[in-house]
């Protein structure tokens, strides 16, 4: 079993809408998985079902080869929700210990792990501070620590970078990589596509409760590529028109071209080389996930919660 998580035909309907409408996908172990979608797509509901907070109306959740057990599998999952916070008046060390024990760790184990992580993220001196005395970035770091403390096999992060400055964001990003390398699987839910492109292996895009994309980042980009290329030449060519391509954009010596069907990149290169012009650079412009997202989601029925009547 190479999949840490398998979702099969999950459904969750509310009186006013179908929050999750027949979703199925798999997540393989050790991968960094992106769950994307506009607001109201059903991501949070889906995540809450995976973590056992909500129960699906129908469908199966298979965690690490076995049926998901909301009571005993808690310790295998780490969840950092979008709506997150900490007890403001509680001291940090105490709070981390409390949360770890709630997960099921023994006091001894918990203290060990807390010390390890605090040291790693340079938080040791904060042990006796109250959460309300921390800056936002510091409390985000703390939140992250409490999520991964118990070495869960599946880590779910909903908008983990919101509110983080670039330094701390980078820190967390590195930690995520590290965790994945050590065998944990990470599910990312975010709107920030540039991060998804950077970090995720595999993505699923949801809209209005349905799955509309499922594949690796590369595959998805290939799926939506438009055969656009950028060429930088050393000098202005005499001839810029050719049957093999369509000129989309030009900035001095940099050209954006779209290669027409039936022709290859070599054809374009040949065209310019034959004119005795040096080609400085030539590469494919793959669509950004941002563009793909907008293309797929824009124009669909309202971005906020869609109020559909559930058929009786």
């Amino acid at each position, binding site marked *: 079993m190479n999949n840490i998580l398998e979702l099969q035909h999950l459904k969750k309907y509310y009186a006013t809408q179908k929050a999750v409408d027949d979703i199925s996908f798999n997540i393989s172990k050790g991968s960094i998985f992106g769950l994307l979608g506009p607001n109201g797509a059903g991501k949070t509901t889906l995540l*809450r079902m995976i*973590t*056992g*907070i909500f*129960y699906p109306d129908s469908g199966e959740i298979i965690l690490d080869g076995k049926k998901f057990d909301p*009571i005993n599998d*808690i310790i295998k*999952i780490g*969840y*950092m*929700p979008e*709506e*997150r*916070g*900490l*007890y*403001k*008046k*509680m001291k940090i060390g105490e709070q981390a210990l*409390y*949360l770890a*024990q*709630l*997960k099921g760790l023994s006091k001894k184990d918990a203290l060990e792990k807390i010390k390890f992580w605090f040291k790693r993220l340079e938080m040791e001196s904060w042990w006796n501070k109250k959460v309300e005395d921390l800056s936002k970035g510091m409390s985000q770091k703390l939140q992250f620590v*409490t999520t991964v403390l118990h070495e869960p096999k599946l880590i779910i992060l909903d908008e983990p970078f919101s509110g983080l400055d670039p330094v701390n964001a980078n820190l967390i990003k590195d930690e995520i990589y590290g965790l994945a390398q050590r065998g944990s699987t990470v599910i990312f839910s975010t709107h920030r596509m540039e991060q998804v492109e950077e970090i995720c292996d595999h993505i699923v895009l949801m809209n209005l409760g349905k799955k509309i994309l499922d594949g690796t980042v590369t595959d998805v980009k290939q799926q939506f590529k438009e055969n656009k290329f950028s060429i930088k030449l050393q000098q202005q060519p005499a001839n810029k028109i050719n049957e093999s391509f369509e000129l989309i954009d030009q900035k001095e010596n940099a050209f954006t071209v779209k290669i027409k069907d039936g022709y290859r990149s070599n054809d374009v290169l040949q065209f310019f080389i034959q004119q005795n012009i040096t080609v400085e650079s030539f590469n494919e412009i793959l669509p950004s996930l941002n563009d793909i997202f907008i293309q797929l989601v824009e124009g669909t029925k309202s971005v906020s919660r869609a109020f559909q009547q559930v058929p009786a």
Partner: protein
Amino acid sequence: MNKIFLVARREFLSRVQKKTFLLTTILLPLLIFVFYAMIIYFSVKTNDNLRIAVADEANILNGKINSKDDIAFEVVKNETVTSLNTALEQKKFDGYIYIPSTYNLMGKDSLQLKSNKAIGIITREKIQKSFDDVLEEKRLLSLNISKAQLDSVQHSNNRIKFATINGKSDDNTKAGISYIVGYISGFLIYIILFIYGTMVMRGVMEEKMNRIAEVIVSSVKPFQLMMGKITGIGAVGLIQFIIWIVIVFGLQLLLPLIFPDMLHQMQGQPIQPAGMQAMQAAQQMKANGGMNELMNSLHQINFTLIIGCFIFYFLGGYLLYSSLFAAVGSAVNEDPQDAQSLLLPITMPIIFAIVIMTKAVNEPNSGLAVFGSLFPLTSPIVMMARIAHGIPEGVTLWELLLSMGLLICGFLGTTWVAAKIYRTGILMYGKKITWKEMWKWAVRKS
């Protein structure tokens, strides 16, 4: 179960370790005690001795009228109204009563007291009583009843002794004490429900306000979180309560040392209407030889029963109401104002219970009292009033058992409903929730 304990422990420790805990637990009863002491002191002590001159021109008093408490009567002779008025203005005394020589002892003439300052109602009553007593005696004597006959009429002891059908003696002292005990325990439970109920509500709002609800709920079930909070806060309440009782008892022992005259002075005074019977009981106690009677009556009151029931109803009432308070807390967003309107249907039965209780202490077997002691929302308070009268005079055994059973069903029911409301409420932000909406959550399948 373990998780409930973890949550409860955190709730308990986070409250008990705060400095304010010690402050309120110890300072508050002290403050209340001082407050009460001052009230009693000032109500019992009147300003100065009131000096009333009685110009007895009809010579009925024989030069003597008993001074009472802080009123000093002085019989004077050979004064006229004018001379009395002058003396009054000169403040030789505070007031005078002029009994003209033509005063007819058996007639219906009224006497007049002229004073140079206002005389309060209580003092007036005392003056009236003094005069009633002495005039009555004089009238009887003038009808040729001898002093010896008069004494035997006044002091013969025809008091009715009350007893119930099972032979136990049910005297006034016991009735008086039952009254006090019932009243106090009912009131205590009332206060406890309010204070700790709102504490639970605010505790529940803590997760929403700190936005940590979802994090916690990913580790424990909402039901476990709710029960942990109720238990933890309940434990805090218990500790506080025990400390208070210890302090109050300790201070009560000190009270007679500080106010040795207090008990004596309190007898003539109706301090509050509710205390009347208690005062009469105290008077009776003194008349019948004090301590022995008290001990006797105390023996008749089954304190083990009362304390046992108090603990049961205190716990049952707390569990029932705290889960309702928790449900309200979970539905409220950051603004505690929203809570007010939602709280109304919960606070009403509690207040209603107190009202029924004040009736039940006097008539433990009236229809209203019976209903109030069985209905789970009111029974914790009302039953205490009935129990104080003992079994079976105040309440029959089967009624007691039925009431306990209903209370258990009651708190199981409210906990179940509250759990459903709670689990939806703590994850919901933004909307203003009404009871109608909460009810929908409660009946929806989870």
